[in-house]
Structures are given as C-alpha cells and as structure tokens.
C-alpha cells in the first residue's frame, strides 16, 4: 500500500546552517492493512519520512508509491487529489480553533466538494465513531488533549482514506488518553481496513499497536521487520529498543540471556536449570510484555553451581526450541542516538525492503 524506493531528502544549506540529509536512501514497504511503526531517536528523520509519504515534503530523489500510484510522478494537482486518500494525524492535533469539532471534521469534506447534506451525515457518523457525538458543537479549546486527537482522527478519516499517517499522535497525551487513542486507532484500522504508518519515539506505542516496525537512525533504516520476528532475532538493535535487554554489567555467576516468546516460554528454561539440574537460578533483570498481541520478554538469569553442566543444558534447551544464550558484559547492541561520534563508526547500512516477509505476522 505504501512503498518508498531509495528515497532521499536533502534540505539545502541555508544561512549559517549546513546542508542536512534528513532521509538518506530509505526503501520500505507497508502492506495493505498493516500497522507499521517507524521509531528512532530525535533527529533521525522520522517526521520527514512520514511527510514524504503524502509529499508534504518532496523527496530529493527516489520514488513514493501509495496504493499503486507513483506520487512522485504526479503534478501538483494530481498530488492534491492523491492526498485525499491519505489521512494524517499530528502530535499537536492542528485543529482549527475557529471551527467546532463538527466543523473541523467537515473541513476535508468541504475541500473535496461534497454536498452539505452528505457532509452533515458523514460528520455525525465520524464523531460517533470516535465517541464524541455529544461534543460536536464544542470548540477545540473546550476539549481535552485526548478528545482533540479523537476529533483529529475523525477529520483524518473523513475523506475515507486508505492510508492513515500518524506523526507522534500520542506524544502530547497523558498515559490514559494515549491508551484510548491507541485503542481507537486499532479499532478503526480493523473496521475500515486501513493501512497505518505511525511515527513515534515511544516504544510502548509500537508494542501496543504495531505489526511491524523499522528503526531509523540518521535518516537510514538500520533494522526492521515484523515485530514477532524482530524480537526473536538475536542482537537486533530494534528489539533492543522495543524491549531493552537487562544490563549485564555487575551481575555475578554464569549469565544466561533468555528470550521469551509464546513458542518458547521461560518456564521450561527455569524447570530444566533449577528443577532438573538443581542449579541456583536468580532472575537478575528483564521484563515480559505483550507485543503485537503476543507475549514477549527478555530475561537475564544468573546461574551458579553449574560445574560445566550449563553449556550442555543450554544446548539441550536450544534443541528443544528455547531461546537461550550465554551473556557476557559488553555484548549488548550499542545504544542509538550518540550522534557526535565520527561517521566511520556508523553501523553498516541494512536495507529491510519488506516489513512483512515473515509469515506469522498477525493482521
């Protein structure tokens, strides 16, 4: 549904500021009906990337394809028409203060030249959909942050788009409103069969709603794929962001890193090590969360009393499907965001052309 082909966006040098390469050769594709996330540290090019999809920013080079239409080949008029099939939600809502909630939802319908009676009907349906039917006459100033974002979502859906872009849509909201807005996004995606591309710096948001994600750093995709696959991939920088690995430094004993999935629960590991072998097993750190609707986690175990039996036991566990490995201090993926280091130290570019290569992704 969305496809970026080797897209670059360079902001030319301006007075006092050098040229900025915001997006540096990104290729990615989001399948029809997929809920995809783009994560990365601030300044990594996320916001520019999402604006390339509806050509609010024209790419310097490369192709943008939405719903089979090559947007980068269209003239201004064509781009405007194509934008109606792409809704967008923003961090700061961007509602018009001069209009009521209903007036804001009506705005895109007016622009699309839809008749008044039809507009009224659709606005009522949309406000109902986002649970704000009773606030149709309220001004944005009278609404809470969560309500404003609901109005903005209704507005983004008004022209019946196939794609919804969310630019940090929950970053200005409190946790309760965030959960409500994410529920709404999940619901409209399912009900309307939307394809959603969501930009965020909050990993909890990705864990809650995304099927797949890419990690952007300095304008490049450094990791990505379906979350169910990424999280089981060893030493994945994206997985390290989504579920930070517990710190190894300072822990004693033989250390074992366990990746928990529904297919490889931690219980079996603990049973073998503590139960069958009678080793002393402590959980040093880690967490287990629900990601893309499934249980995922990373645990760090400290094992003592192994006497050389540990490696054989780990091999046996691995043969049985458990995701376990020895951990040593310093073998975690390096954190992103340290942008002052020399360019030579940048990780090698890894292009993830298709987010949905793995078959077991939930839709």
């Amino acid at each position, binding site marked *: 549904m969305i496809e970026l082909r080797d897209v670059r966006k360079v902001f030319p040098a301006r007075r006092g500021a050098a040229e900025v390469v915001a997006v540096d050769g990104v290729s990615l594709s989001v399948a029809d009906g997929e809920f995809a996330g783009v994560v990365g540290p601030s300044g990594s090019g996320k916001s520019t990337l999402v604006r390339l999809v509806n050509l*609010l920013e024209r790419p310097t080079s490369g192709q943008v394809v939405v719903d089979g239409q090559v947007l980068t080949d269209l003239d201004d008029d064509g781009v*405007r028409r194509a934008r*109606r099939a792409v809704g967008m939600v*923003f961090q700061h809502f961007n509602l*018009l203060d001069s209009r009521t909630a209903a007036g804001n939802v009506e*705005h895109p319908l007016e*622009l699309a030249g839809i008749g008044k009676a039809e507009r009224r009907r659709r606005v009522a349906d949309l406000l109902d959909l986002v649970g704000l039917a009773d606030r149709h006459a309220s*001004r944005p100033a009278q609404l809470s942050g969560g309500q404003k974002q609901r109005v903005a979502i209704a507005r983004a859906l008004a*022209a019946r788009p196939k794609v919804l872009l969310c630019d940090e849509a929950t970053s200005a909201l409190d946790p309760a409103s965030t959960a409500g807005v994410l529920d709404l996004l999940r619901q409209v995606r399912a009900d309307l069969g939307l394809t959603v591309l969501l930009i965020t710096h909050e990993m909890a948001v990705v864990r809650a709603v995304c099927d797949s994600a890419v990690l952007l750093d300095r304008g490049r995709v450094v990791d990505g794929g379906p979350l169910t696959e990424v999280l089981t991939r060893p030493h994945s920088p994206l997985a390290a962001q989504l579920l930070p690995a517990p710190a190894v430094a300072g822990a004693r004993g033989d250390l074992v890193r366990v990746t928990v999935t529904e297919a490889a629960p931690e219980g079996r590991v603990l049973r073998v090590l503590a139960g069958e072998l009678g080793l002393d097993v402590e959980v040093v750190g880690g967490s287990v969360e629900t990601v893309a609707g499934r249980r995922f986690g990373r645990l760090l175990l400290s094992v003592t009393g192994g006497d050389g039996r540990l490696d054989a036991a780990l091999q046996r566990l691995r043969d049985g499907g458990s995701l376990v490995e020895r951990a040593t201090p310093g073998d975690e993926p390096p954190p992103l965001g340290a942008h002052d280091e020399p360019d030579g130290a940048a990780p090698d570019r890894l292009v993830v052309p298709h987010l949905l290569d793995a078959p077991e992704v939930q839709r």
Partner: protein
Amino acid sequence: MNDWDRIGPQLAEATWDTLYMVGVSTVLTVLIGVPLGVLLTITAPGALSPSPAVHRVLGLLVNLGRSLPFIILLVLVAPITRGIVGTTIGSTATIVPLTIGAVPFLARLVESSLREVGPGKVEATLAMGARRRDVVRTVLLPEALPSLVAGITVTVVALISYSAMAGAIGGGGLGDFAIRYGYQQFRTDITVATVVLLLVVVQVLQWAGDRWARRLAHV
C-alpha cells in the same frame, strides 16, 4: 460667545463628515489592505507560496507608504486625488489620501496576524489535499479573524487621527472645523468640544472593536 445654537449644527455636520470619510476609507482600506497583507504573508520565504521578488516589491511599497508622514502624503497624492475625485478639497477628496495612507498600515497588521496562525494548521489542511487558495480562505483568514478585527480597529482609530490632520489642508470634518473655528478664531471652547467628540468616537469604536474581537476568539 453664546453662538452655540449656530455652531452646534455645524459641529454635528463636521462629525458626520468625519464619520463619512473614515467609514468609506475604512471599507476601501480593508478591501485593498487585507489582500495585500495576504500576499505579503504567503509570498514570504518558507510560506505557502514563496516568491522572493513579489515579496520584496510589496514590502518596499508598504514600507514607503508607512515611512511617509501623512501630511506629506496628503500633498504628494494631490494629483491622484484630483484625477479620481476632480478636486482636492472636501471630505470626499480626503478619502483618497486616507485610504492610500492606511492601506500599508493595515497590510502590515494583517501580515503579522496571519503569521501567528500555526504552521501545523496549514500543513494539516494541505495534507487534506487543499489548494493554496483554500488554505487562505478556510484556514489563514478565519483563524486570524479575531486578530484581524483588532488590527482593523487600530486602523480605524489611525484613520480618525489622519482625517483630523487632513482638516489642516481643507479636508473637511472635525479637524477642519477645529482649525477654522477653534484655532483661527481663538475659540478654545470649540477646540475642546471637537477634541471631546473625537475622543468619544475613538472610545466607542475601540470598545466595539474589542468586543467583536473577543466574541470571535475561541481560544
């Protein structure tokens, strides 16, 4: 000095002349100044429709109009006034320099009002597939309306003061009246009366403008 029964009606007529001059030139100023302010705003670098050449030329014109003292402008535009109205004397003739003087003033106020409209609102509207003129019509102007009304009120008050100045060269209205009767005939009471009238007119207009702007503001 007990000639107020003679002066009273003349004062009323002068007040009417002032309201007429200011009223007509306000309408003309809004009709020309608001589009000019919109053009100044959208042609700025990084704005909706950047055009450095247009922006620079318009900015220069506006600055020229703003930097000329109004009394000089009155004299300078006299040939234009004669061309349009046929005379340079009287309240109708004064409408021309009043409008020419107030348009750049209002255009700058409009520009700063429109610049206050959040760029995110413009971006959101462009993302809906809006044309640039749709953005001006449905976002910039409505969102800036309270501030535009405040700017127009300031312009009207400035027009009243300009119109009084035009009285110095035979422009009619309260300024003309104060100079001919109050100043040249040493009638301080007439000068004071016109000042009080001007003050009342300005107060009422400012009050009404503030009220209107407040009613429009929904933030």
